[in-house]
């Protein structure tokens, strides 16, 4: 333990991209005789997904992206031996094309306020020692020894922390209800079943900083009065399972789980419960059924699970992100947290940026950030300089926000009023070459597969709405369909049994609210403005721009393009299957869609 390294290289985002990167680095470090000075660490997710594998060299603070094993010798030589920056491996700012070498200068990171993700990518997640070294479990000590459960509840209430699982229920009130619930045996649960198809922050957190979740969980158990905890993770999420399992074992070894934690007299232990992943499996009553060993199916929540949960006992379920925030509030105080964010939504939100955006990844920013700032400042704008069309937020349960709302600050209330919802922070950016109708149809299709099928309104309602949307995208829609969608959508929303059904119509209803003209274009003009719906579009060559290079002709899988060298080419609509390969391949933007 007494080795003092002068430099730590934190490597993140290996996965399929460069599994050999770390062995390569280590070998090179040894080869250059730096074994005792430089340490290579596999850290967790840095959240800069489009740029991985990424590397942070401390103490310099140099950040490299897209590192491959072939780059290793140069990297070690230049940066670790000579202390110089390898420019070609640094982040390139999209508009100015300037190279930014230092981590703290990269806008994607500099504009973030990382609370949930505070340790992600900066420590070795499989080492409880590193977590303790950066101050981990200090908050637990403070909570157990110098605070009463009531004081902690007050602190959380004052901080304004709301659950980050999607519903945004005030955590202080939830734990208070749990504490007041009748019964000797109570449970605390962790929801590790991240279901939104475009969300990956829970996974990142579980894999990159599992101990922060555990710390929050133990504090929660202390407040509520539970001595047993369950961490529910789908078994398919093997990385998260492995990470949490190791963390549990290490915490147990150190006596942070078990009897008399840190000498406080409080006893608590937790175990993993694995289930089969499904979108509805993340719903609280469905999750509790799964922990009991039953099928992941929701039940009506007239009586809250904090009073009647697993096996009929009071159960407090929290999302992983919420739990990881709790130790920070304990350490730094409610006022600090309350000072970030908006009036109703305090603190930060972790957004997962996906879709037509340059900086695909995870960004944690204060609540109240405008859509414009998120998309253009943090997100780096839209690739190829295309136009912003909509921001979809809240996953399959959320809605679309048009360009007219670009300057709207985002928090729980503003988003709900606008017909969307915060959800877990999954964000998809659409540009002018995406079709809102098709995207709404995509989400409905997802929900149709994920519906448990118990209640009529969700099961049949989604199926029927999907049938209508499919017809519209194929050019067989009618104007009356839009009213049907509205009526059906509103009933499904108000009548369904669980959150899945209640929010399923949101994509449809919000697109009808803001993008009715696109629907009408599909129905009346039989056209798809985004150029996506295959039945309604046609690919053609723009004669003025085509120089006859033949790239499209060679790539066309149906041989639908004909033309001589150096002469304007032509697409035969009868053969064209609208795959879009010619559009992607043409370097002169000579392929158009109408």
């Amino acid at each position, binding site marked *: 333990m007494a080795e003092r390294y002068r430099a730590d290289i934190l490597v993140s985002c290996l996965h399929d991209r460069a599994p050999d990167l770390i062995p390569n680095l280590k070998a090179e470090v040894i080869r250059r005789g730096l074994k005792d000075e430089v340490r290579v660490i596999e850290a967790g997710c840095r959240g800069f997904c489009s740029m991985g594998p990424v590397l942070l060299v401390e103490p310099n603070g140099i950040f490299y992206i897209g590192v491959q094993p072939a780059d290793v010798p140069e990297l070690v030589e230049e940066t670790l031996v*000579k202390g110089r920056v390898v420019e070609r491996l640094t982040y390139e700012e999209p508009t100015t094309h300037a190279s930014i070498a230092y981590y703290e200068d990269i806008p994607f990171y500099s504009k973030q306020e990382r609370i949930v993700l505070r340790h992600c990518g900066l420590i070795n997640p499989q080492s409880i*020692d590193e977590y303790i070294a950066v101050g981990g479990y200090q908050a637990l000590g403070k909570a157990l020894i110098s605070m009463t459960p009531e004081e902690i509840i007050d602190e959380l209430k004052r901080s304004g922390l709301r659950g980050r699982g999607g519903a945004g229920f005030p955590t202080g009130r939830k734990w208070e209800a749990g504490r007041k619930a009748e019964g000797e045996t109570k449970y605390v649960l962790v929801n590790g079943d991240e279901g939104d198809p475009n969300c990956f922050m829970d996974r990142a957190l579980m894999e990159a900083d599992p101990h922060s979740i555990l710390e929050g969980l133990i504090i929660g158990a202390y407040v509520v009065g539970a001595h047993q905890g369950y961490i529910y993770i789908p078994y398919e999420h093997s990385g998260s399972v492995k990470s949490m399992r190791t963390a549990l074992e290490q915490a147990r070894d150190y006596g942070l789980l078990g009897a008399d934690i*840190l000498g406080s007299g409080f006893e608590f232990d937790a175990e993993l419960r694995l289930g089969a992943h499904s979108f509805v499996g993340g719903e609280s009553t469905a999750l509790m059924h799964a922990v009991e060993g039953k099928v992941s199916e929701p039940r009506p929540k007239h009586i809250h699970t904090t009073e009647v949960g697993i096996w009929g006992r009071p159960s407090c379920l929290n999302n992983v992100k919420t739990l990881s925030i709790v130790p920070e509030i304990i350490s730094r105080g409610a006022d600090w947290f309350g000072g970030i964010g908006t009036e109703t939504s305090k603190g930060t939100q972790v957004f997962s940026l996906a879709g037509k955006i340059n900086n695909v990844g995870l960004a944690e920013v204060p609540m109240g950030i405008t859509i414009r700032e998120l998309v253009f400042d943090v997100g780096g704008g839209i690739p190829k300089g295309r136009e912003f069309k909509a921001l979809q937020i809240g996953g399959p349960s959320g809605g679309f926000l048009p360009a007219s709302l670009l300057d709207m600050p985002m928090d729980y209330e503003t988003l709900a009023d606008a017909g969307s919802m915060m959800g877990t922070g999954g964000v998809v950016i659409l540009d002018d070459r995406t079709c809102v109708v098709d995207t709404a149809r995509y989400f409905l299709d997802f929900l149709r597969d994920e519906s448990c099928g118990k209640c009529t309104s969700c099961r049949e309602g989604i199926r029927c709405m999907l049938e209508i949307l499919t017809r519209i995208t194929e050019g067989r829609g009618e104007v009356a369909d839009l009213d049907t969608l509205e009526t059906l959508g509103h009933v499904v929303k108000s009548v369904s049994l669980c959150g899945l059904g209640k929010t399923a119509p949101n994509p449809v209803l919000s697109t009808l609210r803001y993008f009715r003209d696109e629907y009408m274009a599909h129905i009346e003009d039989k056209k798809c403005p985004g150029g996506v719906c295959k039945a309604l579009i046609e690919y053609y060559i723009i004669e003025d721009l085509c120089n006859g290079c033949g790239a499209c002709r060679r790539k066309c899988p149906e041989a639908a393009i004909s033309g001589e060298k150096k002469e304007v080419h032509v697409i035969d609509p009868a053969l064209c299957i609208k795959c879009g390969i010619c559009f992607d391949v043409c370097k002169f933007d000579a392929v158009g869609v109408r």
Partner: protein
Amino acid sequence: MPKLKSLEELQKLRQQLQGDIKARAETSTTITVGMGTCGIAAGAREVMRAILAELDARGIEAHVTTTGCIGMCSREPLVDIQQGGEARVTYGSVTAVMVPRLIEEHLIQGNVVQDWVIGRVAG
């Protein structure tokens, strides 16, 4: 792994472990060793090792980084010490033998070793 039986034990462990990640910790002291080709030829590697060993032995928190050739090749090995808001001081022709005194006098006592200084950049 002995179980932690109290908050005090946790805090002690933390202090102990903090040294392991000192490369990532905030410190106000940075020592930079010139490791360009000229530096290495002049023996900068030995100087580097000596610095690390000395810091370790004395339990001092400081960042140690490298830099390339700054042009004063004849004076290599060059060692920069920057403490807090103080001026950055560059020592020249440093050898491993000189290191303990540098650490003792400059870092710990705050006195620059004038004889060995070849340059100063205002803080």
